[in-house]
């Protein structure tokens, strides 16, 4: 079961994860990561821009790599685009597998790549206006772990 989506409005991750788990009968474990806009002092909103011809195809490529690398039964990957408020989810990745290591590692792998290798651009609105967010050094080193 493979469910890869961009979503342009607020959503409840639970409404995706329940059906996803049901859609993979016989699984041993499901690992799920939900990323939210942090309620930091000064951040009023986040905006995620994407480039349609690249973004969804890129997420499908990433899913292909995850299926090739890990022993998975299912993969859910949902990314918000547009303006997102603090406390709202930005991204959900859920992996179902026979063994927990594959499920956990697949989520880790997909998140590391969504952070610094998927076609999204992020800016945040603070008191003094909009600021583009560059990936952190840590994001690159997180991704490079998978190149060994």
């Amino acid at each position: 079961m493979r469910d890869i989506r961009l979503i342009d409005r607020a959503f409840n991750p639970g409404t995706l994860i329940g059906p996803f788990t049901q859609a993979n009968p016989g699984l041993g474990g499901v690992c799920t990561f939900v990323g939210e806009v942090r309620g930091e002092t000064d951040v009023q909103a986040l905006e995620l821009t994407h480039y349609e011809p690249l973004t969804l195809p890129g997420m499908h490529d990433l899913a292909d790599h995850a299926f090739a690398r890990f022993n998975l039964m299912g993969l859910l990957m949902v990314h918000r685009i547009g303006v997102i408020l603090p406390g709202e989810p930005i991204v959900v990745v859920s992996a179902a597998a026979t063994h927990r290591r594959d499920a956990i590692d697949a989520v880790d792998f997909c998140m590391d790549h969504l952070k610094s290798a998927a076609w999204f651009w992020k800016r945040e609105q603070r008191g003094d206006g909009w600021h583009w967010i560059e990936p952190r050094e840590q994001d690159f080193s997180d991704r490079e772990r998978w190149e060994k």
Partner: protein
Amino acid sequence: MITLVFLGKLADLAGRAECECALTSGAINWPDLLALMEDHLNTAIAEAALADRTKLALNGAVLADKTALIARDGDEIALLPPVSGG
């Protein structure tokens, strides 16, 4: 006519998210694109396009070597700065 698409902070530099440029010849290459941006937009966006970390996509396919660009009438060129998702 070709379409230029500016993503992320490059849209701020270009002063727009997209622009359409008329071609004087049938096709443009990488130096032509830089000159086009200098003429129609500004120096800052042409310089940003030169940066190593700026990638180029032609009709939705990322170019391995942006300096090998050849774009024709009707094509869409996207300028892609470093990404940050999740």
